[in-house]
């Protein structure tokens, strides 16, 4: 065997590592005759990966973990490109006293996904807070809804976890498996995908040039000068995705003229309920994070947000309590028209938590972190997949935080993509092939678009302060509060277990 074949043999066995694969037989000899090709191959064979995940955030790492746990994909080689050096340090979480204000609410569907990929055990070792109750009301005082996990025969409605805990749990899980991954602490500068083979010319001389050696791969160039090749490029690099930009995906969307302020606060008592109140300028949410701490997500218009961000702590705390309590409007009365008599004809349908009275959220006594503000927008990529490139997470879609769904949609994307890749490998498909990636898109796009439409609908419904509309919203609150099947359906949909709202 000549050296080129021997090298290819070596690289093939190491790189791809398919357990049931027979190395080259003696019959066939690959055609790579020119010395130029051999030199190029020597340089670049170590830089060939099956999948390049651009963006080592929560969704990108979740995809890597999911691939690491599936039997058909755990032999794949993966490059993770992220300029956040913290990725390289295995235990970068110090048990800080105060929780970080960047948190995510994970739905039960996401929790079971994390359990499947083996990362939830690491989350449970750090701070996390399950909650089983939720109360939603608005400033008009005309109605409220209380959700209880028992209404849908579940134990929890969700769990609030700091983003850095999720990230480190996924990373720990990844380090524990013997998944072949390499982390590139750099930023992506350019990407080129060689043209589709349909434009191959039938040349009578089979000369192998550089473009043919790498003809089936995407080439990625990084800021620190490295370049690598991959069969599939996954864009998991967030709302301002570079992969999406380089691959030429068009997006649809608009900016909400709203900013969100986030911070951590402390109470005098424990809090196990999630609270959300819709105010004229936007909703304010109070989410328990554990140890008497809670996380605040307050949506408001940009001018107010800069005021609130810069005002003193005491003023801010007063404003917070005002917003959560009786600011902007009255408390809803526990029963608008008598003790739910109006629904008594729906006997058996009235939910158990219908008798729960309206409660005032716990008072905020201390501010436990700095206040951060960021603008909100809705953005959706028109396509999620093209030749050798696929988008997941915020790179594909960004939504309003009002229902805590954003990252959960991203985890759903990661789960679906890894199962589609696994199915493709089972029948020997080239994982960068567009028809395979379109299967992922066909599965996730309707779900994501539906959720975005629902959230956008809520956001728009609350921007208008108009009498009849207020009553309509109040009626919706009442309906959701008292009618059990509707409440169950809403909880199922928000938990990620149901694909379409209102249809069981």
């Amino acid at each position: 065997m000549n050296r080129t074949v021997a090298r290819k043999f070596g690289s093939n066995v190491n790189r791809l590592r398919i357990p049931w694969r027979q190395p080259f037989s003696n019959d066939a000899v690959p055609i790579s005759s020119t010395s130029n090709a051999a030199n190029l191959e020597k340089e670049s064979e170590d830089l060939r990966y099956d999948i390049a995940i651009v963006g080592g955030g929560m969704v990108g790492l979740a995809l890597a973990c999911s691939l690491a746990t599936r039997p058909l994909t755990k032999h794949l080689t993966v490059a993770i490109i992220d300029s956040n050096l913290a990725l390289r340090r295995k235990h970068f979480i110090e048990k800080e006293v105060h929780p970080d204000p960047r948190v995510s609410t994970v739905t039960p569907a996401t929790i079971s996904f994390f359990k499947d990929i083996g990362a939830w055990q690491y989350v449970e070792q750090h701070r996390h807070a399950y909650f089983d109750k939720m109360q939603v009301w608005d400033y008009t005082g005309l109605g409220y809804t209380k959700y209880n996990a028992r209404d849908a025969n579940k134990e929890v409605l969700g769990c609030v976890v700091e983003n850095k805990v999720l990230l480190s749990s996924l990373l720990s899980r990844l380090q524990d498996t013997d998944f072949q991954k390499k982390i590139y602490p750099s930023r992506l500068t350019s990407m080129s995908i060689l043209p589709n083979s349909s434009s191959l010319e039938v040349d009578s001389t089979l000369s192998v040039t550089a473009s043919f050696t790498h003809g089936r791969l995407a080439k990625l160039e990084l800021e620190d000068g490295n370049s690598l090749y991959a069969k599939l490029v996954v864009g998991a690099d967030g709302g301002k995705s570079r992969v999406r930009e380089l691959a030429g995906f068009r997006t649809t969307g608009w900016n909400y003229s709203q900013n969100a302020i986030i911070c951590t606060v402390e109470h005098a008592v424990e809090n196990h309920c999630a609270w959300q109140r819709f105010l004229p300028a936007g909703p304010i949410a109070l989410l328990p994070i554990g140890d008497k701490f809670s996380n605040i997500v307050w949506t408001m218009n940009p001018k107010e947000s800069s005021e609130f961000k810069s005002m003193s702590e005491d003023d801010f705390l007063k404003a917070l309590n005002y917003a959560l309590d009786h600011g902007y409007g009255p408390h809803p009365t526990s029963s608008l028209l008598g003790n739910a008599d109006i629904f008594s004809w729906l006997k058996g349908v009235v939910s158990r938590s219908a008798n729960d009275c309206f409660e005032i959220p716990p008072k905020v006594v201390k501010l436990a972190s700095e206040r951060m503000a960021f603008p909100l927008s809705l953005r959706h990529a028109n396509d999620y997949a093209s030749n050798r490139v696929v988008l997941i997470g915020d790179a594909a879609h960004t939504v309003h935080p009002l229902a805590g769904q954003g990252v959960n949609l991203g985890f759903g994307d990661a789960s679906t993509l890894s199962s589609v890749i696994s199915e493709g490998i089972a029948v020997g498909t080239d994982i960068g092939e567009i028809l395979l990636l379109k299967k992922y898109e066909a599965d996730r796009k309707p779900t994501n678009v539906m959720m975005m439409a629902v959230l956008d609908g809520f956001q728009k419904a609350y921007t208008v302060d108009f009498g009849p509309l207020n009553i309509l919203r109040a009626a919706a609150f009442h309906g959701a509060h008292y009618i059990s099947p509707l409440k169950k359906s809403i909880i199922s949909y928000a938990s990620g277990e149901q694909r379409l709202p209102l249809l069981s």
Partner: protein
Amino acid sequence: MSSLKLLSQLRWFRFLPRNLSNFRLFSDVSEPQINIDPKYNNMFNKASSTPSSLKEPELAKFSAIADTWWDSEGPFKPLHKMNPTRLAFIRSTLCRHFGPFEGLRIIDVGCGGGILSEPLARMGAIVTGIDAVEKNIKIARLHADLDPTTSTIEYDCTTAEKLVDEQRQFDAVIALEVIEHVADPAQFCKSLAALTVQDGASVVSTINRSMRSYATAIVAAEYLLQWLPKGTHQWSSFLTPEELTMILKRASIDVKEMAGFVYNPLTGRWSLSDDISVNFIAFGTKEN
């Protein structure tokens, strides 16, 4: 019962106007030899007097669109979309018969641009692909060389009959969507059987000759939806599952499993099913 049905079909057939000068005979009586038009001789690497079971107009048809084999959106899109489903059947039947794919010698007869050969090679088999159209083999070779896992595929511009002459044998012989383009299906099946080792496997897929397939594969696919160029298929060349089973049996291949492919227009996906009224695939083993 089924043979009676077959005989009655044969009688009916004789009265239909035909494009072909010969008609299908399912007896063992040897048929007149078909000679290849000399102008196509340069397509074949070796000159041989062995008659090919291929039809000339079919070769010309495929030559014309050879460059578009690997364009997922091009004229071969239906084949690309059907591919994972075909592979699922092949994988499950071959694995049940042989075990894991490693070391398995498979020949893809009528490989075209290599759409089937490449996934089989990625799954670990030792693949040989043959096709009568030189352009297809060139495209297949170029495309397979772009990936180290598929560059081991051996491609040859030849026919099944020529390989039989060379006494080549394979563990599994796969001929998908070929037999409907062949002039003499019975002879073709005999060649496939000769290429298979004892207790090896043969997989053949084609389109059923039924009213439904006329409506779907000819009228809908070629004229209404324009998935396939007009004239790709001729309804009279289709075989029913019973006919295919019989000619394979005559060639010592015992059909063990059969499945159909159905297309769901809402999801745009193909799936395996028991419905063999349009596209179907048969798996058989070679017996003594």
